[in-house]
């Protein structure tokens, strides 16, 4: 692949990630602002975004930092929130295992929800997932996340009323769009219904963040247990 093709792919990836970047921008700002409120220094807020790069878990971490919980418990909680990435990793790994090791290592580092979902979407459209394209998606999200964290940390106290602007509900809308995008997959509807029901139930009975893993597991087990459609032809 020539350098200009790679650049085109990279830019295409970055553009693909635009809705996700818009949807997550308020959370980056909010994280930066809350981090300072919870006693983080600007450096610590940025260090967390740079090294962890997982919005929901960073928020949960902050919540616990404020409560003077034992350090190991904070780490375990963040691990629990991020546990869904194990599934992304197993799923994406099948598509990128032929890449050089350093490219794989870097790709897994930026494997947040949007890069995973966009890669699956692209695979479904029958387009190749190249490293240049994927890292375009990841870089767009990663770089913007850092800028938002820094801006939030510096100017957080100036943030306007975010409720009226609807920022707290942009991510669910984006995720719903992603779910809809996979509707042509076999067994999509039963999987979505079971995952939704199980996660709502777990949300009420067990609590967050376990509803994610429990709901996901229910859908995946169903997907694996339902009758296979011409499975022999599908496996490469």
């Amino acid at each position: 692949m020539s350098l200009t093709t790679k650049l085109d792919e990279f830019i295409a990836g970055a553009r693909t990630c635009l809705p996700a970047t818009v949807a997550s921008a308020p959370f980056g700002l909010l994280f930066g602002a809350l981090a300072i409120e919870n006693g983080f220094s600007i450096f610590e807020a940025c260090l967390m975004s740079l090294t962890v790069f997982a919005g929901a878990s960073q928020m949960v971490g902050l919540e616990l930092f404020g409560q003077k919980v034992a350090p190991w418990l904070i780490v375990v909680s963040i691990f629990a929130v991020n546990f869904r990435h194990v599934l992304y990793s197993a799923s994406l790994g099948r598509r990128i295992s032929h890449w050089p090791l350093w490219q794989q290592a870097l790709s897994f580092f930026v494997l947040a929800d949007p890069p995973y979902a966009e890669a699956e979407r692209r695979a479904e459209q029958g387009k190749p997932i190249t490293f240049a394209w994927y890292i375009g998606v990841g870089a767009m999200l990663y770089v913007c996340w850092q800028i938002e964290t820094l801006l939030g940390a510096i100017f957080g106290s100036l943030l306007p009323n975010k409720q009226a602007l609807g920022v707290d509900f942009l991510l669910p809308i984006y995720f719903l769009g992603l779910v809809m995008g996979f509707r042509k997959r076999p067994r999509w509807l039963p999987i979505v219904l079971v995952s939704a029901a199980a996660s709502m139930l777990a949300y009420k009975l067990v609590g967050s963040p376990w509803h994610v893993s429990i709901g996901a597991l229910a859908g995946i087990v169903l997907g694996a247990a339902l009758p296979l459609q011409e499975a022999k032809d599908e496996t490469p």
Partner: protein
Amino acid sequence: MSVNIWIILAAAVATYLTRIGGHLVLSRFSRIHPRMQAGLDAVPAAVLTTLVAPAALTAGPAEFAALLVAALVALRFGLMSMFFAGAFTLILLRQIMS
């Protein structure tokens, strides 16, 4: 170094382990069973649904309408149109209803 920094770095390692762990475990199998394959194909719908469902549970009329509009637009148009249609509905209704 402050304890905060150590916690952040440990959390970063833990997070990277989740992001690489699934692949490391799976790549030890030389052949993937069709059932496992079907389970992995279910991952996007199953996981992403759990990120929406509880939000729908606590949603008010404006949020619910936004999800509905987004879902309907998604049936015909791309992700970008869907997202902005949903966001526009949400912001508009919240401004009217507040």
